[in-house]
């Protein structure tokens, strides 16, 4: 019991953990979204261009 | 147009000397062309020089260069000055080439492309060294610091070589883009950070009489950088000037 009393508890840093992973997941998520959006836009553009081309 | 047509004549002269001799001749022709042109107009050197001296002056007000901080900060101030003045020189040197159509002329000559690279690089190095040779005494006088230290001069030489090796290559690229002048520092500075760090630490070391054992790593780093980047630039230059 004396041992556990002498051991210092680890620092209370949970909020930094949350901040850190919010950033990590957030940026990854945003990037994947950007890839999806850009792909969709390009596909739409291509359809339009193909139509114009056929005229 | 005199020096340029002379250079072109030298390049196209047939010779029985082996390829290497022709290479050297091409390189020196290009260097001579740049030097001769500069001798007459002096636009490059004067711009670099005035700029460098202005930067030194600004530093006097920007940083408190009193006696004690001076020793620690001299190398840094000098190298920032050289880096910025160097950029100016690199930009102008390549821009003149492109604008006067010299680059196209040189490319048409039957000579190895890398001769153009070496010629320009050595030319740029000479200009940079001239500016440094003037800035050093001026700084010495303004701040009562003795800068005539052979070790320091060695570091400045090695650093300038590396800077110019990469700078000449990148300025050849930058001059062919829309954003030109603005782009060169953006491209160049991240790549020359090892030179700046090693040169500043090495310079400070020599100025403060630090043990040569501690300065060794910096000199080695400069040498390694120079060798690697001269080789890399040499190998890659062809791809930048092909049409």
């Amino acid at each position, binding site marked *: 019991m004396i041992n556990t009393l002498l051991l210092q508890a*680890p*620092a*209370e*840093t*949970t*909020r*930094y*953990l949350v*901040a*850190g*992973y919010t*950033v*990590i997941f957030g*940026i990854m998520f945003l*990037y*994947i979204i950007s*890839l999806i959006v*850009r*792909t969709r836009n*390009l*596909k739409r*553009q*291509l359809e339009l*261009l*193909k139509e*114009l*081309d056929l005229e | 147009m005199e020096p340029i047509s002379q250079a072109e004549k030298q390049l196209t002269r047939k010779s029985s000397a082996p390829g290497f001799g022709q290479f050297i001749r091409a390189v020196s022709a290009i260097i001579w062309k740049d030097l001769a042109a500069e001798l007459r107009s002096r636009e490059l050197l004067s711009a670099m020089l005035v700029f460098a001296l202005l930067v030194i002056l600004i530093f006097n007000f920007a940083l408190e260069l009193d006696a004690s901080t001076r020793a620690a900060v001299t190398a840094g101030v000098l190298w920032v000055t050289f880096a910025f003045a160097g950029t100016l020189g690199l930009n102008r040197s390549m821009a003149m080439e492109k604008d006067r159509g010299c680059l196209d002329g040189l490319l048409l000559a039957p000579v190895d492309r890398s001769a153009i690279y070496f010629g320009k690089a050595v030319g740029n190095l000479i200009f940079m060294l001239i500016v440094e040779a003037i800035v050093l005494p001026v700084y010495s006088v303004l701040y009562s610091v003795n800068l005539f230290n052979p070790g320091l001069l060695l570091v400045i030489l090695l650093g300038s070589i590396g800077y110019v090796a*990469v700078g000449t*290559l*990148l300025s050849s*690229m930058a001059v*062919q*883009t*829309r*954003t*030109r002048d603005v*782009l060169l520092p*953006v*491209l160049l500075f*991240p*790549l020359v*950070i*090892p030179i700046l*760090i*090693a040169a500043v*630490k090495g310079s400070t070391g020599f100025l403060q009489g630090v043990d040569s054992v*501690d300065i060794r*790593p*910096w000199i080695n*780093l400069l040498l*390694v*950088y120079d060798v*690697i*980047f001269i080789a*890399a*630039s040499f190998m*890659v230059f062809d*791809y*930048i000037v*092909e049409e």
Partner: protein
Amino acid sequence: MESKPRMLVILDVITSLLFLTAVGMVFFYAPLEAVMGQVQRVFYFHVANAWVGMLGFMVAAISGIAYLRKGDRKWDIVGLSAIEISFVFFFTAIVSGSIWARGSWGTWWTWDPRLTTAAICELVYAAYFLLRQGIEDPDRRARFGAVYAILSFISVPLTFISIRIFRTIHPVIIGAGGSGAEGSFDMSPRMLHTFIFSLITFSIIFADLLWHRIRLGKLAEEAENLRLKTLQ
């Protein structure tokens, strides 16, 4: 270039599973660090992100060499994709590293070699994008991009070494925490497992994203070609 190839769908699934497992390991399997507390868990994905950043840079440099030699535009797309992904992941690494530093040592930034080199890499990427932006001709854009990717990749180890030597000779303590203290905790076996698993997972994530981004690049090229053709 229409529907997703089978391999990619499978890769997507594998990537997602690996990712979920890694997250699970980080939060539940890895033990609590004795000194730093919970924030230490950021370390696993922070390093994994940086690792992907370096991977991307390497892929870009190799693609650069391939493009210069072969002239096939697909290598340019690979290079651009790799650098874009690397840019995003390095950014994540830098920010998460900053948060970790703040949580562990009370300082938002340490000038230690790894973080500083990552920041310099970000600037290199910015320069790369600016370079490409200033060029109209696609072939020249690809060539110059390749050259810059190669040269800047060569400079990174030299930059890292020079900062390293700089720090050992002049360890400057900035703020309450010491710099260079990064990674100064002992890794227990479970931590090691989580760490290595994270690295592997993120390597797969990189491959997956790279494939997707390359497909996007090919679409863009197709659109560009068609645009030039129809809007003559």
